């Protein structure tokens, strides 16, 4: 069970604004990327650790979270470095959806979830069952638990660990 407070976003939170152009050529590193993650999304986050210092554990968004193109992993690494443990949204842009799976960060599709949340609400999320509870408002939502492969990659701590382990054991990966 994961608990913490959430930040509520709108439609079309774009990768471009989550990691600004000047940081695309930086190393991929959760700690480093988290300093300026979301800097272009909201003026309040446009300072060093601007998003991270808010102490959010969850993001609740509407449509096409992390869209606009860009396959760079700084986006997901930055969110993880900032303490985000799961993102709930109507839909995710596929490039970052894929990266999130590869990093073991749950990107959970949950229709219309944004309507029941306000920034700062306390949430609890059970990845095993998919149950999401808005503790502040006393409401509950259901999501589909991760598919077996996604859960396995998450349990391994990401695709790199998953594949490294298979290679070390001489097992086929798929």
């Amino acid at each position, binding site marked *: 069970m994961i608990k913490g407070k959430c930040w509520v976003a709108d439609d*079309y939170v*774009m990768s*471009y604004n989550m990691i*600004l*152009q000047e940081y*695309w*050529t930086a*190393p*991929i590193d959760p700690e480093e990327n988290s300093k300026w993650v979301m800097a*272009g999304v909201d003026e309040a986050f446009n300072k060093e650790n601007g998003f991270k210092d808010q102490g959010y554990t969850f993001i609740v968004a509407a*449509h*096409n979270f992390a*869209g*606009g*193109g*860009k*396959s*760079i*992993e700084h986006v997901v690494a930055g969110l993880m470095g900032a303490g985000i443990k799961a993102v709930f949204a109507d*839909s*995710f*842009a*596929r*490039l970052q*959806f*894929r*990266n999130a799976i*590869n*990093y073991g960060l749950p990107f959970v599709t949950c229709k219309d979830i944004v309507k029941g949340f306000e920034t700062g609400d306390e949430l609890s999320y059970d990845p095993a069952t998919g149950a999401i509870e808005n503790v502040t408002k006393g409401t509950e939502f259901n999501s589909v638990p991760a*598919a077996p*492969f996604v859960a396995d990659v998450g349990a391994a701590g*990401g*695709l*790199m660990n998953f*594949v*490294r382990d298979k*290679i*070390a054991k001489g097992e086929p*990966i*798929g």
Partner: protein
Amino acid sequence: MGMTITEKIMAKQSGRDSVKPGELVWVDIESVMTMDYLGKTCFDKFKSLGKTEVFNKDKVICVSDHLIPPPNQKFANMLNEWREVVKENDITHFYDLGRQGIAHQIMVEQGHVLPGTVSIGTDSHANTYGAVGAVGNAVGVTDAAVAMATGKAWFRVPDSVKFHITGEWQPWIMGKDLSLHIMGMMHWNGHLIYKTLEYTGPAIASLDMAGRMTLCNMTVDLGAKNGIIAPDKTTAAYLDGVAKGEWEMIASDDDAKYEAVYEIDVTNLGPTVAKPDKLDDTVPVEELVGTKFNKAFVGTCTNGRLEDIEIMAKILKDKQVHRDVNMMLVPASQTVYLEALRKGYLETLIMAGVAIDTPSCAACAGIHTGVAGDGDIVLSAGNRNMKGRMGSKNAQIYLTSPAVVAASAVKGEITDPRTFAA
């Protein structure tokens, strides 16, 4: 039940008789592409997996395109590290400054992408590879590193959506117009998230490879997983003498299942423009005629090919770029550049007042040559127009075809190319 071309490719490459949408498969990868600013990280990650050699030195394709030639010391240093790591890993195909091109152009033009196979690249426009009947997919450096080590990548088999394109292409109308038209119709990163888009029909059969590459290229901006056009005579002629391996014709079954089918007749399709900030805010050029702009740009993995340069040269022959407009062309590769030179297009364009730069991604991603400054209004044949994409957040970017860019550059305001004799 029949399969779509994407399902057939995923079945074949995962060693199965059939696959269904939603299934998770590990597929064999034909080529893995990575490029200058992410490449070193790919190799570092690959090494950390416990392998010392990549799965196939002929199938890891390395390209310098975003940072070349280096405009500052930071990029120069990154390129030096990149060259070192490519050398260390003894990679066969390295397209560096002097032999360069935009990665997606190189992958198709140099025959690293084969019909009926799957190739991936660490840049979002890897969807371009669908133009030759391959599954082309953009990934992060993690997937590329895993593929370098194992020759494989995981995929969830996508649902298929068909665009059946009919009618006759009219003079000055290009694949880009169709691409932007579909963007307006389906909405940017909207209804097509995770889908495979298949383009078929007589107006695809009559479309050249450059137009097919434009169409498949921009499927990533529709949110799709991939865009694909089944190989045909045009594909075979294009790959003749170029393909780096054997390949076979492949097509969707007649009874394949599509989540949706859209019909579009191009006969009445006109020049199309996306207004600043949102790709799906598209309008027929007529609505914007007379709009002033000060920068004109043709290039990128979307529209920097020979056919694009040819259409510019036709429009700009014996004409002059308006004095209030700075116009730049950046060919998509050295091969394209040389061919445009031999055909005389570059002479025509230089005489008209067009600046030509060495092949690179240039200003498209806002990190290299020709970026936009505050107050600039750019008419671009590139692929994205969100605020800040080409540099300043205080610049405006209109996206359109090379024909519209060229015609408008003459007038200094957005112009319908159909007012020029075809």
